[in-house]
C-alpha cells in the first residue's frame, strides 16, 4: 500500500507539472487553450528524436522544444488571439471564439503530427531503474519528473508572489481591465504568460516521454487532465494545481488497483464531485 501511495504521489507531482502551464494560460491569461496538450506531444517527440536520431540524452530535446513552444504560443497569442480580443463585444463571446480557434488548432497540430510522425510512435528506455524510498520502489525517471515539477512549481509560486512581473500577472488574473488602468501592459504580459505556459507543457512532454509511449494522439488526454486539475485546484492558483495534481495522482493510482483502464473516469468523478461541492476549486480563496 505504501508503494501505491508513493507512486501516486510521484505520478501526481507530474500531473501538477502538466497543469502548471495551463494554469498560466487559463488561470492568468484567461485563454482556454484546447490545443495545449499538443505541445506536450511535440515535446515528447523531440525527446524521442534526440535519443533515436542523434543518440543524445532525451532530456536535451527540451533545448529545442522549450524555446520553440514558447515562440509558437507567443505567436498564437499575438497573431491569433489579439485580433479576436479586439473584436469581441464581451468576455463570453471572446471565450467562445478562443475555444473554437484552439479546437481548430488542436486538429491542425495533431494532423501535422499524424501525417509526419505517426510512423515513429514509440516508447524508449531512459533512467528506467528502481529507487528505494522508505522501502518502496519508485522508477527513477518518474522521480526525476516529480523533482522537476516541484522545483518549477516552487519557482513559479515565488515568481508570482515576489517579483513585479508576478504581481502584474496576479493583477491581470483578477481583473484585466483594472490592471490596464494602473499602467500594466495587459496584452504584452498576458502573451508572455501564455507563451510561458506553452514552454512548461513542452518540458512536461520531454520528461513524461521517458516513461510513456509517444504517439500523435496523446495530446488531448493531457489537455483534459490539465484542465481538470486546474479547475479542481482553483484557476490561477499554482499551489492549488500542484496539490490537485497530487490528489488526482494518488486517487488514480489507488483506484487502478481495482479497475485498470479507467483513469479518465476517475478524473471525471473527482471533477464532478468538486464542481458540485466547491465550484470555485478546492484551493481557491473565499
Amino acid at each position, binding site marked *: 500500500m505504501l508503494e501505491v501511495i508513493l507512486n501516486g504521489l510521484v505520478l501526481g507531482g507530474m500531473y501538477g507539472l502538466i497543469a502548471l502551464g495551463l494554469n498560466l494560460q487559463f488561470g492568468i491569461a484567461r485563454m482556454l487553450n484546447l490545443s495545449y496538450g499538443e505541445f506536450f506531444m511535440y515535446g515528447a517527440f523531440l525527446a524521442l528524436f534526440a535519443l533515436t536520431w542523434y543518440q543524445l540524452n532525451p532530456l536535451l530535446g527540451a533545448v529545442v522544444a522549450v524555446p520553440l513552444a514558447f515562440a509558437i504560443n507567443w505567436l498564437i497569442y499575438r497573431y491569433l488571439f489579439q485580433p479576436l480580443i479586439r473584436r469581441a463585444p464581451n468576455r463570453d463571446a471572446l471565450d467562445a471564439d478562443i475555444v473554437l480557434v484552439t479546437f481548430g488548432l488542436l*486538429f491542425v497540430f495533431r*494532423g501535422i503530427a*499524424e*501525417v509526419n510522425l505517426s510512423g515513429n510512435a514509440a516508447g524508449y528506455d531512459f533512467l528506467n531503474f528502481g529507487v528505494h524510498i522508505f522501502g518502496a520502489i519508485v522508477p527513477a525517471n518518474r522521480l526525476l519528473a516529480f523533482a522537476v515539477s516541484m522545483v518549477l512549481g516552487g519557482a513559479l509560486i515565488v515568481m508570482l508572489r515576489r517579483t513585479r512581473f508576478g504581481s502584474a500577472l496576479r493583477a491581470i488574473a483578477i481583473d484585466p481591465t483594472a490592471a490596464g488602468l494602473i499602467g500594466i501592459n495587459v496584452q504584452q504580459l498576458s502573451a508572455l504568460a501564455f507563451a510561458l505556459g506553452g514552454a512548461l507543457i513542452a518540458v512536461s512532454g520531454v520528461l513524461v516521454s521517458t516513461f510513456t509511449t509517444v504517439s500523435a494522439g496523446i495530446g488531448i488526454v493531457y489537455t483534459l487532465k490539465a484542465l481538470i486539475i486546474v479547475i479542481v485546484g482553483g484557476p490561477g492558483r499554482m499551489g492549488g494545481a500542484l496539490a490537485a495534481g497530487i490528489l488526482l495522482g494518488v486517487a488514480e493510482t489507488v483506484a487502478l488497483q481495482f*479497475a485498470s483502464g479507467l483513469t479518465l473516469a476517475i478524473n471525471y468523478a473527482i471533477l464532478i464531485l468538486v464542481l*458540485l461541492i466547491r*465550484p470555485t476549486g478546492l484551493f481557491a480563496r473565499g
Partner: protein
Amino acid sequence: MVEKSSVNRLAIAAAVVGTAILAAVPLFVAGYGISSGITIFANVALATAWAFFSGPTRYISLATASFVGIGMYTVVVAGTVVPLSIALVLAALIGFFIALVVGLSTLRLSGVYFVIFTFGLTELMFQLATWYEISYSRRLTRFMPPNLAGLDSAVIYEILLFAMVVALAATWYVGRTRLGQALRAIGEDETVARHTGINTTLVKVFVFAVASAMMAFIGGTLALRLPYITPSIAFNPTWSFQVLIAALLGGPGFFWGPAVGAIPLVLLSDYFAGRFPYHFSIALGVCFVIIVYLIPGGIAPRLAGWYRRLAATEGARQIRDRFATLRHDLSLWRRTVLRPRLRGVRRKAPPALQTGDNPAQVPLLRVTDLRKAFGGLVAVRDLSFDIPKGSIVGLIGPNGSGKTTVLNLITGELVPDSGSILLNGEEIIGAMSYQVNRARIARTFQLVRVLPGMTTRENVALGRMFGSDPVTASAASKEVNDLLERVGLSGHAGQFGAQLTYIDQKRVELARALATHPQLLLLDEWLAGLNPTELKIGIELIRQISREGVTIVLVEHVMEAIRALCQHVVVMNAGERIAEGTPAEVLSDPRVMQVYLGEDDAAA
C-alpha cells in the same frame, strides 16, 4: 403581419413538397445518390440538433460524438432483441438520460465548464466502452445483428430524412415559442433571464437532453451502415468536430443555418477525404480557424441580408402582393365555409391576486438580522427593516455600504449567511432568482443589463412571457405596447438593446420589470444619470407606478427623488443600518451627514 405570415405559409408548403420529393428519390435513384443523401442528411440533422441547444444559448458543446456513439452501441446491442424501431427509440431515450446527468452536473455552472466537460466526454465514453469490452465481453468488436446487417440503404435514407426534418422542424418551431425566447435570453444574459422568471437550469438541461436524444437517434441509424463497431469507431471525435464546423459555417443563429453549412462541407470533405486522406484533419482545422476569423456568425446572416435586399425590390413586392391577395381569398373561404376556430385562448386563468388579510400589521417585506460576508468583508451586517405594503421606501448610503448586496440577497442572486426575508410573512431565502421573480418581486440593475441582441420589444415581452403570470408572445403584445408607451420607448420598439442610449436602456429595464407584474419593485439607482427634465419625468413615473399599488424600494443617490417620493428612508453605512425615518429626519441626522460628507464637513 399579413405579408409575413403568407410568406411563412408558402415556406411551409415548399418544405412539405420538398420533403415529399426527397422521400420519393429512392424509388428512382440508387447507389451513389442514396449514399450521398445519407451523408448529407446525417450531417444536416446532427448540425441542426447541435444548434438546437448551442445556437441560442451559446453554450458550446463538443460532445456530439459521445451521443452518436451512444446511439450506435444501443442499436447494435438492443438490435439483437428488439425491432429496429424500438432500438432507435431506446437510443434516443438513453441519449436523453445521459445528457440529463451531464447537464445537471455542469450546466448550473458557467459556459467554460460546460465546454471543458463536453470536450472530454467522448474520450471518457471511449475509455469506458473499451474498459467494459475488454474486462467483460473480452472482445473489442461487436458485429451488427444479422437481422439488421445488410439493411437496404433506402431504409436508412428514409430514417435519416425523417430525423433531419424533425430536427429542422423542432428548431424552427421552438424558436417561435416561449421556450425559444427563454433560450435566447439565456444566451444574451443569464442573470437577466433568471430575474425575469426563467428557470434557466431546467430550460438548459431539458433542451440539451432533447438535442442529445436526436443525436443518439441519428447515431443509431448511422450504425446500420457499418458491418461492426468498436469503441474507436463509435466514439470518433471527428463527428463533434465536423458537426461544429458545419453549424458555425452555416450560422447557428438561424434554424436553417447549420443545414446551409453542412451541405458544402459534406461535398468538400468527400472530395478531400478521397484525395488527401492524411491531410483531412489539418484541412478541417484550418477551415475552422478561417471561419472564426472571416465569417463569424456564419453564412446564414449574410444570406438573410441578401434576401432582405432582394425582397425590398419592386418585382418582389409585386409577387408578394399577389400572394397576399391569394391568401386573403383563401382565408375568406375558410372563415365562411369552414368552421371558425378560436385563437389566442389562454391556457390557464391568472392566479388570484394575493390580498393581505391585515396590511397594516404584516409588512409586504420584512428583513430581519440579514448578514452576508464575502471572505473577511462583511457587506451586510445584521440588517433589519420593513417595507410596508404600498409604500415607497428609500435605501440610501454611501457607495460600498451594501445597498446592492441587499437587493441581491432579496432577489436570490446571493444567499445570506443568516437572517430572514419574509414576503407577506413567508420566508423567501433559498428561493432561486426566477422563483423570487414569480413571487412578484422585480428589479432593475445598477449596471444596466439590457439583452443586447434582442429588440426593445422582445426585451420587454420577455418579462410578460415569463414572470408571475406568463402568457404567449401574441397575448403579451398589447400590454407590451402600453408599457413601451408608458416609459417613452414607443419609437424604439424595433431597435436592438445594444443600439439604445444609456437612458433608453434604463427605460427598457423598468418596462421589463413592470411586465412581470411585480407587487414589489426594486429600483437600483434607476434615476442616476438623468438630466433635470428627465429626472422630473422619472420621478413622476415612479409615483404613478406606486399609485397603482406597486410597493417600491428605491436605492438612490439622488436626494431630490428621495425627498419627493419616499415616506420612509433606511440609511446604510458599512453594511449596517445607521438611521431610519422620514427623509427630512434622516437627512438632518448628524450621523448620516457624517458618512456622506466625512467627519470635518459634517462638523462645519
